[in-house]
C-alpha cells in the first residue's frame, strides 16, 4: 500500500465508527458515569445539584426487594422462554420445509404475521383473551368443565401468560432464520443417507440438526439477549403486576428512570442488566467454541 491511499480505509469505516461512537459508545459511557451520581429531575435542570455518590446506587439496588423480584422474574422468563422459542421455531420451520406449495407459503406468512404486528394491538386483543371473567380462553376452559384460569391475575400464572404471548410473537423471525438454514443444507447429504438406508429420524438427528448448529447459535444468542431485556409485554399487558409478579429488569429500569425520574438509580440498574447480558453471551461463545473443538 502506498502513502496516498493510507487514509482510504479510515474514510471507509469512518462514518460507521462515528455513528457507533455517538449513538452507542457515548451513551453507554454517560450512563456508566451517571450510575455513580444521584442525578434526578432537579439535577437535570441544574447540574450543580448532581452529587457523586460512589456505589450508593448499587448498594441500594442490592437491598431493593423489587429489584430482586425483577431479577428473579427475568430469569424465569429467560429459562422458560428461550428454549421454548428455539424448540417451537425449529419445529415450525421443519414442518414448513416439508413441502413448498401454495398452502405452505400461506402458513409461512401466517406464522410470521405476529412478529410484525404492533405490540399494542396484540396487547389489547390478548388482554381480552386472557380476561379472567369474560375472556375467550376461560370461556373455552369453562365449557370443557374446568375451573377458570387466573391468566393475568396470579403472579406466577401471569408470567407464564406473558411467556406464551412472547413465544407466539417470537416464533416468526426465528422460523425464518431456520428455514433459510434448512434450505442451504446440501441435498447430497440426504441422498447419501438414503443410500445407506437411514430413516427419517436418523436423518433429522445426524444431518439436519448438526447442519443447523450455526443457525441455532445465532438464534440462541439473539433470543437470549432479547429475553433478558423483556419489556414490551409486561409494560403494555400488566404494568408489572399482579404483586410485581411480571416486573422484569427492563421494566424496573424504565419505571425508575422515566416514571420516578431517578436517573442515577436506573442507570445503575441498567449497568447490572448490561453485565448480565455480557456474561450470558460470553458463556455461549465459549460453549460454542469448545463444542467446535
Amino acid at each position: 500500500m502506498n502513502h496516498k491511499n493510507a487514509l482510504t480505509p479510515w474514510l471507509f469505516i469512518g462514518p460507521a465508527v462515528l455513528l457507533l461512537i455517538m449513538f452507542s459508545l457515548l451513551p453507554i459511557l454517560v450512563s456508566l458515569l451517571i450510575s455513580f451520581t444521584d442525578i434526578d429531575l432537579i439535577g437535570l435542570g441544574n447540574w450543580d445539584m448532581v452529587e457523586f455518590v460512589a456505589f450508593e446506587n448499587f448498594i441500594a439496588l442490592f437491598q431493593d426487594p423489587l429489584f430482586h423480584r425483577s431479577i428473579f422474574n427475568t430469569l424465569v422468563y429467560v429459562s422458560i422462554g428461550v428454549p421454548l422459542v428455539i424448540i417451537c421455531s425449529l419445529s415450525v420451520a421443519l414442518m414448513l420445509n416439508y413441502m413448498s406449495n401454495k398452502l405452505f407459503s400461506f402458513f409461512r406468512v401466517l406464522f410470521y404475521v405476529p412478529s410484525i404486528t404492533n405490540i399494542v394491538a396484540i396487547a389489547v386483543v390478548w388482554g381480552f383473551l386472557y380476561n379472567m371473567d369474560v375472556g375467550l380462553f376461560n370461556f373455552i376452559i369453562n365449557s370443557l368443565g374446568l375451573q377458570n384460569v387466573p391468566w393475568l391475575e396470579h403472579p406466577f400464572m401471569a408470567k407464564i401468560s406473558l411467556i406464551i404471548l412472547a413465544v407466539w410473537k417470537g416464533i416468526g423471525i426465528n422460523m425464518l432464520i431456520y428455514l433459510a438454514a434448512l434450505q442451504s443444507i446440501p441435498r447430497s447429504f440426504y441422498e447419501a443417507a438414503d443410500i445407506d438406508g437411514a430413516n427419517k429420524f436418523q436423518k433429522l438427528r445426524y444431518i439436519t440438526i448438526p447442519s443447523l448448529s450455526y443457525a441455532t447459535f445465532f438464534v440462541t444468542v439473539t433470543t437470549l439477549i432479547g429475553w433478558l431485556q423483556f419489556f414490551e409485554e409486561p409494560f403494555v399487558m400488566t404494568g408489572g403486576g399482579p404483586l410485581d409478579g411480571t416486573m422484569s429488569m427492563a421494566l424496573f429500569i424504565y419505571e425508575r428512570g422515566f416514571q420516578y425520574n431517578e436517573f442515577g438509580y436506573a442507570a445503575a440498574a441498567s449497568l447490572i442488566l448490561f453485565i448480565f447480558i455480557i456474561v450470558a453471551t460470553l458463556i455461549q461463545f465459549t460453549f460454542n467454541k469448545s463444542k467446535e473443538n
Partner: protein
Amino acid sequence: MKFKKGLSMAAGVSLIVAAGCGNDNNAADGGNGEENNGGNNGETTTLSVWAMGEEGNALGSFVESFENEHENIEVNVQAIPWDNAHDSLLTAVASGDGPDVLQLGTTWVAEFAGAGAFLDLSDYEDDYDMINNDDFFEGALDTTYYNDAIYGVPWYVDTRVLFYRTDILEEHGYEEPPQNWEEMLEVSRELADRGDGMFGFDIDQNDQLVPPIFAWQNGWEFNEEEAEENFADPAFREAMDYYHTYFAEGLVQETEGVPIEQGFEEGSKPMFTSGPWMINIIRNEAPDIDGDWDVAMFPGNERNASAIGGSHLSVFAKTENPEEALEFISYMSEPETQIEWFKETNTLPARQSAWDDEELQQDEKLAVFGDQLEEAVAPPVLSQWENIAQDLLSSLERINRGGADLDEELDNFQQQAANRLD
C-alpha cells in the same frame, strides 16, 4: 394526570406524536394585525402554549378571541397527548427549550417546580389579579404552592363523585344514595349478595387517589412536618382497613373483569366513583340505562371528602415573554372565559364565581360536582408523593391479594415512606 393515564395508556403508546397545531386562524388574524399596526408599534409577539390531550385540540381555535383582543400577541398552541406530556416536559426542562405557557397537571407541580421549570408568580402578584385569587377553589389553589412560591394559576378542576344505579338501589329499598361509610358498606353488602359475579361497589386498584381519599374522609390530614408519622395516625390506619374490607368481603371485584362502563350498564357493578368525564362516557356508551343512574357526593366518615385534580397554567422559567404569558393566563382565568371553556370542553371551571352561570346551575349532575369540589382535598405537593402513593398501592395489593397482615404491612410502608422522605 394520573386519572386518565391507565385508561389511555394502551392506546397512547401507539400514538404518533401528533403535534397538531391549532392555528388555522392565521388568515383572519393577519388581516386584523395589519389594520392596527399604527397603534401597536408593529411588533407581534408569538406566544407558544403547550396544552395536553383534548384540551390541546380545543384550545387552538379557542384562543382566537384572545388574539382579537390583543393585536400584538399571536398564540401558537401545541397539542401534546397526555402520554407524551411527561416526556415532553422532561425534555423541556433538560434542554431549557420550552414553551412560554404550559398546561400542568396538578399532580406534577412538585416534581417540575422542584426542578426549576416554572416562573415563580408571587413576584407578579400585585400586577395580576388572578394570581393567588381566593375565588378559585381552595383545593385547586393549594396545589399551586410549592416551597413558599406560586407556580401556576388554576385552569380547570375535576373531582370524584359517587355514580350509582338508582333503579337497582331502589329495588333493594334504598331511595337515597348512601351518605356515609356505614351505609356505603351496608348497601354494598346487600348488592354484592345478589349472586355470583355481582358486586356492590368498584375500586380501581391502580388508582393512587382512592386510599388517600378514604383517609381524608376519615378526618386524616397530611402534615408535612410529621413526615412518615402521618401514616401511623389511627385515622389513616382505619381508612386503610375500610379499603381492605371491600376486598376481604368480596364487595368489589378483585380481578380485572369487564370495563366499568359495561359493569355499570349490566348492573354487576352498580356503584363506582369517577370524575366528570365519566358522565358523557356513560351517556354515550350506555344509553339504555339513561335515567336509571345518578351521581352523589362521595360518602365519607367524618366528612364527604374527595380528591381535587385538574390542571393549572404555568409560565416556563426560561420564557422571554413573561408579561404576554401572564396576560394570556389572566384571560383564560376570567370567569367569562372559564364558562366559555366549560361549554367548549365540558371541563369544570376552577373559579367559583363561574359556577353562578345558569347552565352550570341548572344541570343537577354538575351541581353535585360543584358541592363535591368544596369538600375536595388536594394531594400533598411533595416531590416524593408519587413514589409514596405507589408504595401504598403496592402494600394494599399485598394485603388484599397477597394475604399480608394489614398492620404489619402498613408498618413496612411507613418505614418505606420514612426512607423516601429522608
